[in-house]
């Protein structure tokens, strides 16, 4: 870091919109891991059941979805065993939703620390996304276990080549949650009203995504609306890869990738713009 010793710097009132401080963020990469570690350790220490909570929530949700949407409402699951179908949707959706909600309050949650010391603010939302990956990992493991159980019980599902897209899907979900979360977080610093909408909005969005029903069962009239949601394509790809049922097309996948990229870029730009003065308004 000695090259920084004689480095000249400037602090100005205006900064280029496209100055994303990515280099700066890279220099602070150690902080990212330490933040993730902190989240992880503090999460355990305040609970009795500890990591068990990671399991309880998706299990209960799956049981409830199976009962309400599967048994009572009789929604189609594309011929897949209901618990397996729902669990695939929930696991993927939860990761996206967690990234989005946590990121959307990042300024409010860290107002204290942001007001006292400078570091590239982007570190915080990034650490949220990585921290959530741990939780996702645990839920994903659970999903795999259920998959193995059904495999031994001759259920009709077959993983496909699209399994190879899984890492891409995961990154896209993270990026989408991050991008949307950052856009919202920037707006909530000034207009707090939005914060109230988030939890509610996410729930609504879930029904506009193919979490509890397959795209093939969506009413033709609203199908375009559901497909407009990039998460739909991601969850469909996820299901198609692991369970062999789902609507996968390169067109919709490409659309999702493009939307994700735009959201992420927009999110980072807006986040950086708000970041430099938000301390004054929080």
């Amino acid at each position, binding site marked *: *870091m000695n090259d920084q010793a004689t480095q000249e710097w400037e602090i100005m009132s205006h900064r280029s919109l496209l100055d994303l401080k990515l280099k700066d963020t890279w220099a602070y990469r150690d902080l990212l891991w330490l933040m993730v570690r*902190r989240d992880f350790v503090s999460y355990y220490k305040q609970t009795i059941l500890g990591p068990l909570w990671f399991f309880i929530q998706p299990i209960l949700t799956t049981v409830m979805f199976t009962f309400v949407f599967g048994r009572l409402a009789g929604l189609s699951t594309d011929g897949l065993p209901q618990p397996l179908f729902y669990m695939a949707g929930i696991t993927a959706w939860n990761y996206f939703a967690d990234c989005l909600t946590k990121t959307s309050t990042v300024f409010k949650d860290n107002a204290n620390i942001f007001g006292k010391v400078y570091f590239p603010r982007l570190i915080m939302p990034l650490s949220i996304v990585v921290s959530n990956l741990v939780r996702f990992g645990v839920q994903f493991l659970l999903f795999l276990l259920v998959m193995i159980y059904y495999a031994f019980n001759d259920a009709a599902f077959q993983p496909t080549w699209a399994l190879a897209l899984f890492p891409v899907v995961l990154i896209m979900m993270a990026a989408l949650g991050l991008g949307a979360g950052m856009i919202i977080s920037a707006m909530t610093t000034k207009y707090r009203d939005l914060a109230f909408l988030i939890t509610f909005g996410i729930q609504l969005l879930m029904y506009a995504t193919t979490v509890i029903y397959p795209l093939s069962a969506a009413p033709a009239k609203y199908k375009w609306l559901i497909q407009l949601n990039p998460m739909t394509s991601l969850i469909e790809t996820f299901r198609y890869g692991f369970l062999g049922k789902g609507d996968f097309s390169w067109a919709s996948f490409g659309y999702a990738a493009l939307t994700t990229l735009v959201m992420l870029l927009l999110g980072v730009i807006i986040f950086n713009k708000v970041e430099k003065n938000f301390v004054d308004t929080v």
Partner: protein
Amino acid sequence: MSTAIKVENLSKAYQIGKIGTGTLSRDFERWIAKVRGKEDPFLKIGEANDRAVKGTSDVVWSLRDINFEIKEGDAVGIIGRNGAGKSTLLKILSKVTSPTTGKISGRGRIASLLEVGTGFHPELTGRENIYLNGAILGMRKKEITRKLDQIIDFSGVERYVDTPVKRYSSGMYVRLAFAVAAHLESEILIVDEVLAVGDADFQKKCLGKMNDVSKGEGRTVLFVSHNMAAIKTLCPHSILLHNGTVSKMGKTAAVVNHYLNSNEKPMSVNVITEAMRTFSTGEAFFTSLAINSSENDNSDAIAFNTPIAVNITIDSKKNIDDFILDLKVVSAEGIELSHSQSNFDQRQAYKIGEGHTSFRAVMENNFQPGNYYLSAGIHHSDGATIDYLENVLAFEILNVGYDNNDYTQNWKHGYFRPATIWEMTPQ
């Protein structure tokens, strides 16, 4: 010597009052102005940040057209009353917030300490927090590992380094936090009043470390403090801020002198708002309260051993025949140290009429240098409280007397320093 920091035409405007209501329409207004290439209407109406004067606009300039230059290896003290813009300046230098106009240029890494222990997590151990805090302050992990032993050694908490910091005493917490910050590798060190915490022994250690940093290692130091003695020992040069502008800069002795004797308009006239009242019946209430040095009514810098004058204005809704005022000095820890009441020593209760009435109380001062609070009350002579303001004003007894002598001690016990006559008595 070359320049380490150069500040040019630096200004910072804050919006006061309610933020949120009307922001959408204001944002729209500003956007229209920007598109049409006009001056930002938000900034046109700003005024100097003078708390004593009720403003007409909801924009204040916390800093206005600040210009100065700091040489490499210099240690510069920044002094001024609360609200003079010291913290804003440090925040801008630390990149926590950005200036409204103007720019700062400089050379070298900046380490800034606006608070010790930022980002400490109570559940993590001391060692884990050293890493976390160090990384927040901009250190790489391997850099911290290399300095870990030094940091632990400096903090003096070796025994507890693997204990969660929530079990630490507040003193240990501060020691550890400062130790991390003190071992940052940077060319420029910015320190805000962090030394106000911790015991005197540790404060001395911190000052010593900062002295090493500036004199021994040739790094540039910016130091904000109310502790004039610390500024004097540490900083050859100082900058005095007043209402957001540089009021004097130069050799520390001259600047401190100017500060103590300045006859600028007092900042300490405090208009009492509803939110500040602890209790009120509404019969009569405080409207303003000001603490001054009795020697100079235009200064709120209270020198050591100089009587404290409190100017009080009240507003009464009716005639009160048994009107009593009382004042309490409270320590920073919340201990009531003194109680003065207007009917003590066989004095009669006041009879006051409707409307505004002013009072002035001059209080003997043999308090130790340090930070104190003032509580004020209005009562009936039977003790029934009419209006009460708990810890409403913060003030500081400086460790410099009006004779310009330095009354610092290396350690401080208690709250008072009674004049004492000492003699050796023959056996």
